[in-house]
């Protein structure tokens, strides 16, 4: 909506409101980062000192205190998850987009329903299966569960993208004697690279941030970063700087990505509901 000739007063009020909201958004993040550079004693002082001598103590504790394993687990889980999600979702999405059948349409709709299901509902059956296979507390268990949640999402996004793509390019390749598989690999995929990248990053953010599944399925050796944050926040021995440092570490990867893929995020978050 563009109303250019609005009074200075309105414009000023808008800026004031925006500034208030931006402070509301940024203050917690800034405070978290600041506190991670404090000593334990400094975090306890109220009123808080705004100028203090920063220390890396909390980060040293994070590196030496055996917590790095959670970060390693998370990175491995996310990495494998992205590869598997792409390998399974690309052919599935392509087949749903190109061969229109009644069954295919229903499958597409079922995929959406998994997003509507309560997460702890999905985890009950999964927990029983994983327990029976004696795979609790392994990276594998977390990976399977994340794949389960990411696949429908990846398929839905890619399907929408493939459907919008002009079909002529593939058709001419098929007439020239290429197989479907070759057409997908050589023609469709290179054009869809932006969406493939976006799907990878959204998978990354989802898997990196996911808490409930990792929490229920692991107890010690398979723990991920969010589980670590929650378990630190749940203990009674509050080591605030350490908790802040771990939280900062947990935020960094997603923040790095967002600056690259902002425009895909809307689409990803809304599951392509808006084009």
């Amino acid at each position, binding site marked *: 909506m563009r109303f250019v000739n609005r009074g200075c007063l309105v414009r000023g009020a808008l800026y004031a409101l925006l500034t208030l909201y931006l402070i509301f958004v940024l203050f917690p993040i800034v405070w978290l980062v600041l506190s991670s550079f404090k000593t334990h004693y400094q975090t306890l002082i109220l009123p*808080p000192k705004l100028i203090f001598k920063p220390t890396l103590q909390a980060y040293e504790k994070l590196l030496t205190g055996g917590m790095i394993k959670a970060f390693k687990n998370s990175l491995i889980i996310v990495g494998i998850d992205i590869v598997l999600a792409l390998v399974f979702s690309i052919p599935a999405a392509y087949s*749903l987009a190109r061969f229109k059948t009644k069954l295919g349409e229903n499958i597409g709709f079922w*995929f959406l329903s998994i997003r509507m299901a309560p997460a702890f509902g999905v985890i009950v059956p999964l927990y029983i299966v994983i327990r029976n296979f004696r795979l609790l507390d392994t990276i594998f268990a977390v990976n399977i569960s994340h794949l389960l949640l990411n696949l429908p999402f990846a398929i839905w996004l890619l399907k929408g993208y493939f459907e919008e793509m002009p079909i002529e390019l593939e058709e001419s390749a098929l007439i020239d004697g290429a197989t479907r598989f070759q057409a997908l690999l050589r023609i469709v995929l290179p054009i869809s690279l932006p969406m493939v990248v976006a799907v990878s990053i959204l998978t990354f953010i989802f898997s990196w941030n996911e808490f409930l599944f990792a929490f229920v399925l692991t107890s010690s050796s398979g723990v991920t970063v969010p589980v670590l944050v929650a378990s630190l926040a749940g203990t009674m021995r509050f080591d605030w700087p350490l908790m802040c440092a771990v939280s900062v570490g947990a935020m960094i990867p997603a923040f790095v990505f967002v600056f690259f893929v902002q425009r895909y995020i809307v689409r990803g978050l809304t599951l392509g509901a808006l084009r």
Partner: protein
Amino acid sequence: MREQYKFLLPSLIVALVVVAFPTVFLFYISFHRWIIFIQGIEFTGFGNFYSMITSREFIKSLQVTLIFVVTSGLLTFVLGLALALILSERLRGQGIIRTIITLPVIVPPVVAGFTWKFLLNREVGVIGGYLLPALGFQKSLLGDPHLALGSVILADVWSRTPLMFLILLAGLQAIPTEIYEAARIDGASYWQSFRKITFPLLKSAIIIALILRFIDAFNLFDTIFVMTTGGPGIATQTLPLLGWKTGFLYYNLGEAAALAVIMLFITMIVSLLLVRRIRQ
């Protein structure tokens, strides 16, 4: 023809594994007495559903969930819409402002919960321990049943407003500017063109935003778990927390599955009611 089926096969297998299996198995579990560490799985019909629905904790959790979903949903919607309207004006520094507004949605919810727990803490938090007491407010935010629910809502509004903002902004940007120019030439005021142009054209985006937000808030677990774990008492225990407690603290998987089925039906009914409004 054969090639077509070869290509449909992957999506079929994926659908079976990803969707069909968990759903069917979930329904199966919900009709059985299924408690870990207790031998024997028995068919109980609607037994799990009955004992879940008639328990006092369920009623209380349903109330808490209702308050949480409605309050947080409305607040995020109003804030998101206001921000989207402001940012579709021509402003200086638009790009950077948009990025900052978006940030909280990619902060892991666990971290968002922890951060607000830290800020609102009565002993060491800047807000709960310093700012509010300095203003004469002495109560502990996370220790008082009513205030704790408010605090959880505050953290959720912080972390989820960007989602509403992004969806509504995308909806606003899809409205062609020519319509507004024509309206202005005809002498329409800002409020008139909002009511007669923006609102009707934004309706489907609004409903999609509300559906996604409803599903999101109805199933929210991590933020509340980190901030209060449902406490004090069960003052902030929403249905997902009750489900987690039933299934993974008391190991009564049958009842947890029954609750999940109930929640699935509630989600479907609410979404369908909202979707029907788009069609009209």
